């Protein structure tokens, strides 16, 4: 119940945008907090976060 409520503070759509934006800019304290809470309960967005990090590694590899 609490997990579900935490997961709904922001939607997965909003969380995915914050994960991407974080690659270029520093998020506000509030954005960091809600994103962290969301990721702590959302398996799908945690996968997305890992995949975005992987994408960066893959592009580094592409360049080597």
């Amino acid at each position, binding site marked *: 119940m609490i997990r579900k409520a935490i997961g709904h503070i922001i*939607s*997965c*759509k909003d969380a995915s945008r914050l994960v991407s934006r974080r690659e270029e800019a520093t998020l506000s304290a509030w954005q960091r907090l809600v994103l962290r809470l969301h990721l702590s309960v959302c398996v*799908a*967005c945690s*996968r997305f976060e890992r995949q975005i990090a992987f*994408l960066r*590694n893959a*592009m580094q590899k592409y360049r*080597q």
Partner: protein
Amino acid sequence: MATADFSRDLEPQRGYLLRVARLQLRDEALAEDVVQETLLAALAGSGFSGKSSLRTWLTGILKHKIVDAIRKKQREPTVASAFGDVESEMDIEDFDAMFNERGGWDPKPADWGNPEEALNQRQFLDVMDLCLEKLPPNTARVFMMREVMELETDEICKELTINANNLWVILYRARMALRQCLEETWFARKD
């Protein structure tokens, strides 16, 4: 003698440089030109210290040649058609299709296991290329400038005359599309 050896080292890098240039310029002849200029500049200069890899060093030279080519192209009156419709690529709503009406994933991202293992496979890099080619032209250009050329975001905005918000939307679109393409063609392919 040293020059002959050096040009032999440069030759295998040509394919990579062309791929990177094509993805950013979407113009075969122009891509050939900037790669040619890059290789000539590499031969003429003696800037390669061996501290970074040859490819990284060449990427640095190519970066300047591509930025010059884009500047030149933007001065042409036909710029709108030359670079396609950047406006349509800045529309974030396109990707709403990947979420349901409550903003939940639909479908959910799959479990990729340990994706780093794929990086050692030649075929995976080919799949990356295909997925990059499938991106809309301006989206590919911005993503390559950011991730391969390692330009700072304000430099990219300046060169392409877009604002920071446009840039974030384009990079988000690029990441969403690449993620989906890699998932479908590699990590969760059903065969």
